[in-house]
């Protein structure tokens, strides 16, 4: 692509009023040969008035992290809307653990607060709602999620939860995830992580299993977790829990028995990985199960971590089998997709992980950005000490955990860890998106509609992979858009088989005959025959 990305960046910025210009400039960087590790601003307030894709703290807490825990009843304490929008809107597939087991994914619960509850307080209604939920469903646990007005009127949901826990003998957990907290849904991830760490993980009594792992930040969109687990089980791993795709309360409560944590979505769950390392001694590595190359690399890194000859052999056998099964179709779709260009704007992980998969299909990424990432998601964890904590982040509680006297285990010694690091196992490290990107590409944090439209017009990519709010804008402009939050309701996209599904659908989307009909034939060819006086036909 011969475009000078700095010029594109200037065009994106030129329409902004002075103050907004200054703010947005810091969120848009170009990676170049001279500047391979540009500094980006992230996790700051959205500019008021822009058409943003970002969501809220409640969405991150109830919607992303906690919602998929299938055997809990999640009660949204607030007016009806917040719960309505969390009802099946996010794809996280789940099935009951055993026949007849509990799975509340088809339900949504709320206190449906009315004006009188806002004026006189919502606590009595919340208490009653918990009672009704308990008596109707007898769930494993109940979660209570605060919405904007609850925080403002000061309903003490923590006290209600503590009282209900005593009364009903099941864990009732409260989440102060009012929508206005923080600057994106990321604040909600953090709040959920804290409570999961404090109240769920470590409560189970199972004993550690051999080759036990947790997959953190995997939400089973389109069945991703099931494809990953299929491969891992084939090799011989024990998946203790997935947080939180197809997750059950019991499985998460035993997460501390794993020997390794895999972190898929770094942004939504790195807090838990960090805290589990301190509290239980479980190391973590950043995994990537999107794309065949990513999956292979992760499997090899896992094998190196466990360092058992039989496992290593089995890993290579499975890789060989799975790659062989996928490579024919992948090669075919590569012939269809080679040379195409893409832009990506997704959540807090997929904008990176899909670049590898696209690259393997011959598709070059020109622009990539995250909705709710922090600087480390772009630049890597080495920048964490230099990230300035602003007022909005200060309002999100930071947990400090200590080693658990009974449950802390030395899984690998310090010497072993050092040796592993030398051998290329990146323990507790994530390099961020920038290292994966080519030179002369753009990273945009919190891309808004105006920026997206300018980029579409200037770069004319063949595809823009993003979410529902952007999808139809892009397609009305004649460019293919696939939703990477929901996979457009297919999937899985993860693992070996998922990569093939993704490639097939991307090609199908690009080559659908409908694109040829966008311009009517009569606009491409004159219907009149004969000569225009004084000119050419």
């Amino acid at each position, binding site marked *: 692509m011969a475009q000078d990305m700095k010029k594109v960046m200037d065009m994106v910025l030129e329409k902004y009023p002075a103050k907004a210009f200054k703010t947005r400039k810091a969120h848009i960087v170009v990676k170049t040969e001279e500047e391979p590790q540009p500094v980006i601003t992230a996790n700051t307030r959205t500019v008021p008035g822009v058409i943003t894709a970002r969501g809220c703290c409640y969405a991150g807490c109830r919607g992303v992290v906690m919602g998929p825990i299938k055997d809990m009843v999640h009660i949204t304490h607030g007016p009806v*809307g917040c719960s309505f929008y969390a009802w099946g809107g996010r794809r996280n597939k789940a099935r009951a653990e055993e026949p007849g087991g509990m799975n509340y994914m088809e*339900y949504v619960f709320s206190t449906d607060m009315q004006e009188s509850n806002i004026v006189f307080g919502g606590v009595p209604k919340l208490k009653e709602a918990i009672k009704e939920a308990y008596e*109707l469903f007898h769930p494993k646990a109940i979660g209570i999620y605060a919405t904007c007005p609850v925080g403002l009127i000061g309903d003490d949901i923590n006290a209600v939860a503590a009282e209900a826990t005593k009364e009903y003998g099941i864990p009732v957990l409260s989440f102060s995830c009012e929508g*206005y907290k923080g600057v994106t849904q990321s604040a909600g991830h953090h709040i959920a992580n804290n409570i999961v760490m404090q109240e769920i993980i470590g409560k189970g009594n199972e004993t550690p299993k051999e080759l036990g792992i947790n997959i953190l930040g995997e939400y089973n969109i389109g069945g991703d977790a099931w494809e990953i687990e299929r491969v891992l089980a084939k090799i011989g791993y024990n998946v203790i829990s997935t947080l939180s795709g197809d997750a059950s309360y019991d499985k998460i409560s035993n997460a501390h028995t794993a020997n390794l944590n895999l972190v898929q979505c770094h942004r939504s769950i790195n807090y838990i990985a960090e805290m589990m390392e301190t509290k239980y001694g479980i190391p973590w590595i950043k995994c990537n199960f999107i794309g065949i190359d990513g999956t292979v690399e992760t499997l090899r890194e896992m094998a190196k971590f466990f360092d058992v000859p039989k496992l290593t052999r089995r890993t290579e056998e499975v890789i060989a089998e799975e790659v062989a099964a996928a490579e024919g179709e992948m090669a075919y779709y590569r012939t269809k997709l080679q040379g195409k260009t893409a832009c990506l704007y997704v959540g807090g992980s997929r904008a990176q992980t899909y670049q590898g998969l696209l690259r393997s299909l011959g598709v070059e990424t020109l622009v990539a950005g995250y909705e709710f990432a922090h600087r480390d998601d772009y630049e890597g964890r080495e920048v964490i000490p230099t990230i300035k904590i602003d007022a*909005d982040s200060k309002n999100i509680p930071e947990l400090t955990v200590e080693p658990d006297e009974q449950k802390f285990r030395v899984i690998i010694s310090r010497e072993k860890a050092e040796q592993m690091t030398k051998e290329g196992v990146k323990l507790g490290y994530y390099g961020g998106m920038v290292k994966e990107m080519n030179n002369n590409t753009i990273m945009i944090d919190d891309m808004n509609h105006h920026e997206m439209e300018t980029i579409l017009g200037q770069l004319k990519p063949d595809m823009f992979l993003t979410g529902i709010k952007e999808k139809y804008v892009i397609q009305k402009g004649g460019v293919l858009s696939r939703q990477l939050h929901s996979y457009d309701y297919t999937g899985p996209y993860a693992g070996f088989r998922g990569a093939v599904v993704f490639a097939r659908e991307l090609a199908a989307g690009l080559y659908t005959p409908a694109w040829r009909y966008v311009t009517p034939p009569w606009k491409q060819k004159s219907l009149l025959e004969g000569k225009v006086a004084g000119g050419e036909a």
Partner: protein
Amino acid sequence: MLDATPKEIVERKALRINPAKTCQPVGAMYAALGVHNCLPHSHGSQGCCSYHRTVLSRHFKEPAMASSSSFTEGASVFGGGANIKTAVKNIFALYDPDIIAVHTTCLSETIGDDLPTYIREMEIPEGKLVIHANTPSYQGSHITGFASMVKGFINYLSLNSGVPNGNFNIIPGFVGPADMREIKRIFKVMGIPYTMLPDTSGVLDAPNTGKYKMYPKGGTKIEEIVDAGNAALTVALGSYASEMGAKELEKKCKVPFITLKTPIGIDATDELLMSLAKQTGKEIPAELEEERGQLVDLMIDSQQYFQGRKAALVGDPDEMIALSQFIIALGMIPQYVVTGTPGSAFAREITAMMQEAGLEGIVKAEKDFFDVHQWIKNENVDLLISNTYGKFIARAEDIPFVRFGFPVMDRYGHNYNPVVGYKGAMFLLEQMCNAMLDKEDRECAEEDLEVVR
């Protein structure tokens, strides 16, 4: 599927399960999208705006543009004045709408943000406009939010200049763009000049031309809203979604109004045409009478599949009132009729219709899908009509299912087919009949699989 729902009915006082309504701002956003060159703006934390745009996009499979004041904790404590002022400046610079329609959220309402004062104090470029509506989510539903935004447009913009324009104003209610097109067609065929507010046709069913336009050519024009104050009459279709705006116009500009049912089904469409004829002295054109005759023909031909069958209906109040009447006209029994939106007129009106037809059923406002499912578990129905979320019940209980109302997020093309007018009734009848016949074909004994029905 919905395995945890017990048959035994327990009265709930506090817990809402699987609601049959959503919140006011999404209705306000939808109404604002029906004004040409208007950008809806959500004044609160940005999650609301994101959710609303998502559900509208999923329903219409179209862009749903709106901006947000993006409150964080600071604005929640100190008020959202600075946010809205900055927002308005940025919106005009970046997105250049002619008008910004602000609606509030729970957050800005609870802290008591004073929008009229903010709007008075802000710098608005010449020729541009900012209006607002109060839409806290702890009151009403998406239907009342829609009504409030229509009222907001009228309150800010409509003027009575003393020169009557001879138009009828139409407030179509929370119906889709295809319905708005169909209502406009009926007025055109009747020869009645009109202004429709809002009008999402052309906006949320815009063609694909390969060129994205932020403001497609559809939508009510601002000058039309201004001039609505000079109209001869306002026709409010649906008392819940439309009467509030009509009343405002009467109060502000002395335009009289009539409230009619949303014209779904034969009776409500008859009522609309007869009212229009009465108001204008015009005859009902042969074209519409022919359509009506076609509908009646279809109703008679297919009657054996409807007669005595029971239906459960869940949806928005105006639509449910008219739909119940159509169900009765088809010889069916509206066994359960539910809306999530509060209001007592709903049950009163439908119950009266049922009594007149000698039928009994449960009709309730402020109920949810969980209630309906429990009733169905106790006494099943032959047909379920509701938004997408009804599909869980339909599958759990093996009930033929017709998607209807808002939101329908799991099917394509519904926003191009009207459900209003005689044409819409024919489309609805076809869907209802086919849904029941599909079940029969799927489940009957092989020797009973009929070639002809």
